[in-house]
Each structure stands twice: as structure tokens, then as C-alpha cells.
């Protein structure tokens, strides 16, 4: 079975039937996995997953493979790009079908929390945190993800995630003059 990396992209974009067939065989596990994961939040049927996957292939070959011709191998691997395209296509499909619903246990607590309107939220000044610091804090606290998952995603080691998290919190505490609990214990 041909690996996606072995697919002749020129032949594929030129419409070679044999290359297209090999490409489909090589890519269906990935497209299938992405479609299933994306649509799991929407509680759609097996037929919907099949249709969403077909939508991905339609997009790829439509208008003489116009979308495929936009792929630039110098910027990212074919598998990664296909996975991103598959996800956005599956989301479009789901939105056309129905609203997303998620089991309550899968939703982070922070998303379910009722906002206490008596407490005004403090705005983080622009430039106080870097984009990466904000992203890591959002993953840790809004998404409730662990350090290992974030490290894998950002292609950095876990210690870097912890250190970035720590520096971000120091900046926030310093700016908002919030003492951290450890220092308070030592002082008290």
C-alpha cells in the first residue's frame, strides 16, 4: 500500500486516475479518523461520516484539483495539510446538518460556570503576555488540558510549558499586585 509521502503530486494534480486511486487508499484512514473525531461532537450518523469524508475528496478534486494545487509541500507535510482540510470540511458539513451538542461531562467546567456579574473581570493589558503565554494559560485553565498534551501540541518539552506558565503567572500577579499563595504562607 502506497504511503501518502510516496504519492506523485504532479501526476495527482494532472488528473492521473491511477495516482488518484492510490492517493485515496493512502489517505482514507486519515480522512476517516478526522471526520469521525470532528463529527463526534455533533452526534451524527455513520452515513453522515461517510458523506463528510466524501465531501473532502470532492473538494480536493473539484475544478481540476484546484484545492490540491494550492498545497505547498515546502510548508507542511501532506498528511497534516489533509487533516486540516478534512477537519474544516467536516465542520462545514456538520453546520449544514445540525447544531453541535456535547455531552456535559466532556465540557470543561469553566465553560459551564455561571458568570458572577457582581465581580468585574480585570482586563489583561495588551502586550503584558506573549501569544504563547496566553495560549498555554488558555489550554491549562480554559481547556483543562495537562502539560504533556500542550507540550506535544506545541512541539516543546513539558518543562518549557511549566516555565512559560510560571513566567506568565508572575507577570499577571505583578501587574495586578496579587500575591501568590506560597509567598503568603511563607510570610504568614
Amino acid at each position: 500500500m502506497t504511503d501518502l509521502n510516496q504519492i506523485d503530486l504532479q501526476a495527482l494534480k494532472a488528473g492521473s486516475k491511477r495516482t488518484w486511486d492510490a492517493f485515496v487508499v493512502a489517505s482514507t484512514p486519515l480522512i476517516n479518523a478526522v471526520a469521525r473525531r470532528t463529527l463526534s461532537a455533533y452526534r451524527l450518523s455513520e452515513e453522515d461520516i461517510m458523506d463528510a469524508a466524501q465531501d473532502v475528496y470532492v473538494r480536493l478534486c473539484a475544478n481540476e484539483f484546484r484545492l490540491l494545487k494550492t498545497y505547498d509541500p515546502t510548508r507542511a507535510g501532506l498528511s497534516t495539510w489533509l487533516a486540516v482540510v478534512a477537519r474544516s470540511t467536516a465542520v462545514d458539513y456538520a453546520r449544514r446538518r445540525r447544531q453541535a451538542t456535547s455531552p456535559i461531562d466532556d465540557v470543561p467546567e469553566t465553560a459551564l460556570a455561571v458568570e458572577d456579574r457582581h465581580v468585574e473581570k480585570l482586563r489583561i493589558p495588551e502586550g503584558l503576555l506573549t501569544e504563547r503565554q496566553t495560549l498555554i494559560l488558555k489550554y491549562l485553565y480554559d481547556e483543562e488540558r495537562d502539560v504533556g498534551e500542550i507540550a506535544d501540541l506545541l512541539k516543546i518539552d513539558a518543562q518549557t510549558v511549566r516555565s512559560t506558565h510560571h513566567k506568565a503567572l508572575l507577570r499577571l500577579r505583578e501587574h495586578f499586585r496579587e500575591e501568590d499563595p506560597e509567598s503568603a504562607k511563607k510570610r504568614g
Partner: protein
Amino acid sequence: MTVERNPLSDKELWQRLATDQDVAPAAVSDMDFAAWLEGRLSETAAARIEAAVAADPALRRAALDLADILGKPLPEAPARMAVRAQALVGFEAERQARRGGWLVEFLSWGATLGVPRAAMVTAAVLVAASGFMLGGGLGQSYAQQKYVVASNQATENSSELTALYTTDGI
């Protein structure tokens, strides 16, 4: 009397902050998102994507899901999925691509060698012109055609005259 406030934990501090941006960040293209997932972007370019991902819960989840899927072996897809997808492209797609003719194939061949398209077109024109000149060009070709037609006509006339004289017994 002073009341000492209990210090906030990291999570409590974060929850007290308004973390939504006033202005929505720019949309992220599929190609840019893929490059970011692979860690291939420069620091500046990555920062732009990270700002967009941080601001969008759906994009944050997408990033985690895709990283998880791409990082492990995948189960086989239903056979029907491949059959349906393969049926989208027939041999007609290849024939349509070939309809461009020899010039399209020549340009494609040049592209595989990394030769710019303009250079290939110039080369094609030069080859065609040289061949034409070697063949004598338009003037000679026209003259030759006229000679052929004229000599054919002369042959026909001669045959008719011969036939005329022969039948009359002269």
C-alpha cells in the same frame, strides 16, 4: 482592623481576568495552520497563529484533536469510503488534462526540469521557426505548390490532347 484577603490560586486569578479579545484575530488559512501544527513557522508567524488559536475555542480543540490523530497509527477506513472517493475521478480527467496538446506536455516536461515557462515557450517558438526556415519558408512552399498544381494541369492537358489526336487518327 485590617482584613487579610486570601491570595488567589493561579486558576482563580485566571478566572478573574477578562481573556476575550476586543478585536477578532485574522482568519487562519489551512496551509498556515498545518505549518504551525508542524512547528515550521518563524517565531513571528507562529505568534500570529497562536493569537488566533488562543482566541478561538474551536481552533484550540481542532489543534489538539489533529495533533492527537497525526501522532498515532490509524485504523482502516470502511472500504466503501475509498470506493466512493475513487469514483470521483475517471479516465476522463486524464484525457481532459492531455487536451492541451503537445505544447502543454512540452511545458510540463520543462516544469519538471525546473525551467521557467517563459523560457520553454521561447524555445518552442524557436524550434518551430527553425524547422519552417529549413523547409524553405512560406514563399518557397507556395511556389512549390503552384508548380505542382501547374505541372499537374499541364500533364492533364497533354493527356487530353494526346487522346484527341489519337481518336481522330492524326
